[in-house]
């Protein structure tokens, strides 16, 4: 017991402790520059590629909206989890959060995303909803048939001889419109992401 009291007295009579006790200063209420905050616009022009929306892990956190002639990404606080993936995925450096963009430039890292259209043949009912709804298909073939048939070979997928064929899945932009219109959730878009770094000078 006696030893402990001496020990505690020694602890509380240290010069450092006394200095801290009498001249205590709380930290100012500011966020440090290395904190990864909400993504902010850098002023560069958005090309409406929607890479940020496709990689976002949170429902309803980011939306690219039309703003007159240009497109602008909007971040919703309350949904955004400040992971910084949209900053890394954006090819045009429209967004920035904390030091993410600076670090990315220095390390020359990026995240590339590739989309794969997968159809489960057991549950697909060949209704053609996905073919008609797909915005890329509409651009590639304006004369798309109502049942999903097409004479054009430039479309992503089409109904041919009563079956759904995925022709060009490298054209997919990952918008997932087909998933939302599929009545049996047979069509799924796999977003295959890869974190890369350029090595060498």
């Amino acid at each position, binding site marked *: *017991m006696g030893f402990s009291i001496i*020990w505690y007295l020694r602890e509380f009579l240290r010069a450092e402790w006394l200095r801290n006790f009498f001249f205590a200063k709380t930290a100012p209420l500011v966020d440090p520059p290395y904190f990864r905050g909400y993504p902010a616009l850098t002023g560069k022009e958005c090309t409406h590629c929607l890479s940020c929306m496709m990689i976002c*892990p*949170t429902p309803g956190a980011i939306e690219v909206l039309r703003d007159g002639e240009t497109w602008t990404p909007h971040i919703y606080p309350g949904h955004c989890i400040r*992971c910084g993936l949209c900053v*890394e995925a954006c090819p045009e450096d429209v967004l920035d959060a904390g030091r*993410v963009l600076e670090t990315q430039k220095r390390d020359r890292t990026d*995240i590339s995303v590739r989309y794969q259209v997968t159809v489960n043949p057991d549950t697909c009912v060949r209704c053609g909803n996905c073919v008609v709804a797909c915005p890329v298909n509409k651009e590639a073939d304006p004369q798309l048939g109502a049942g999903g048939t097409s004479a054009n070979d430039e479309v992503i997928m089409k109904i041919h001889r009563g079956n759904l064929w995925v022709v060009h899945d490298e054209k997919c932009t990952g918008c997932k419109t087909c998933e939302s219109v599929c009545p049996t959730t047979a069509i799924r878009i796999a977003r295959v992401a890869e*974190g*890369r770094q350029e090595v060498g000078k």
Partner: protein
Amino acid sequence: MKKTVDVSIPVGPVHPCWKEPVRIKCETRGEHVIGTEVEMGYMKKGIERIMRGRPWQEVMFLAERVCGICSVVHNMVFIEAMESISGITPPPRAAYLRVVVNELDRMASHLLANFSYCYTIEHETLGMYLLNEREHVLDMLERITGNRVNTAYMIPGGVRYDLRPVDEKVLRETLDLLDENIARYTKMFETGPMIALRSKGVGILTKEQALEAHAVGPTARASGIAVDQRTRHPTYKEIGFEPVVRTEGDNYARIMVRFEELKQSINLIRRALAMMPDGPIRGGGICKGGEVRYSGEAPRGELTYFVKADRYGRVEDIAIQTPSIMNIDACSHYMLKGVSSIADVTSTFISSDPCIACNER
């Protein structure tokens, strides 16, 4: 001795000492606790269910949010499970950076656990000291990864940000500061007679009981079982690692194991920084299909992910086994039996470092 119950006292789900909701029903005779029953399920969100059918870049964030206190290790184990499915090896610099961040996270978690214990036994001075040290650790995490908790640092094939030379210097300085301070606080805990009165000989878990209850992590290591998944991790093997073991098995031993692991973590980070080569931090690589059972050591014990992925790297099925469930079971069945008063129930429960968010997901 006839087993008659006087009063059954529920503690929780909202209790000043507990940060998370859980209810313990204590059957008491007089002040003596005869038996306890833990009631859980207040935090069930169904994370494993919403993980299914999603690619790694979404599951990674869900895995992190299984537990906010040990978020880095959940991220690390999930990513390493995906890597072992797909045959991706991270570059050596990335592997060492993972160890650095994981050990910083472990230090933050252990400091929080010891703070909670000190707060529960009403030794607020030491608790606040430890909470202040935790701020230094979180500062370093924020410098390296950009966020204090839920850092989202690791991705398949590497890590997201490199360690800058400036930050490395600050990290070394902070480690020196932490080393000095933690040594002092450890001595404060070791030699305090009031702390010893509330801790030594309270909530004893013997080695046989620990084996029977499948206790893991610091709870098992305080009972003399040298179990640590880090001994199987390739990067930790290179660095060199020996688990900390004590044999008393009471509250005091469990807290002391955490204090000693803090010291060990500082040394691990120092060695990792010394051994870290220059080079790339991301090796690339695409996730493929397969299934694996992968274990890692969370601050609370063994953490296992069972992951089954389809050929595009989407998670088809996932099961998470978290350490807290075993420790809570060991606590309620063995430690809390024979505790001499209700006041010691909370401190004994806290000493096993239960994480309800991990437990129920």
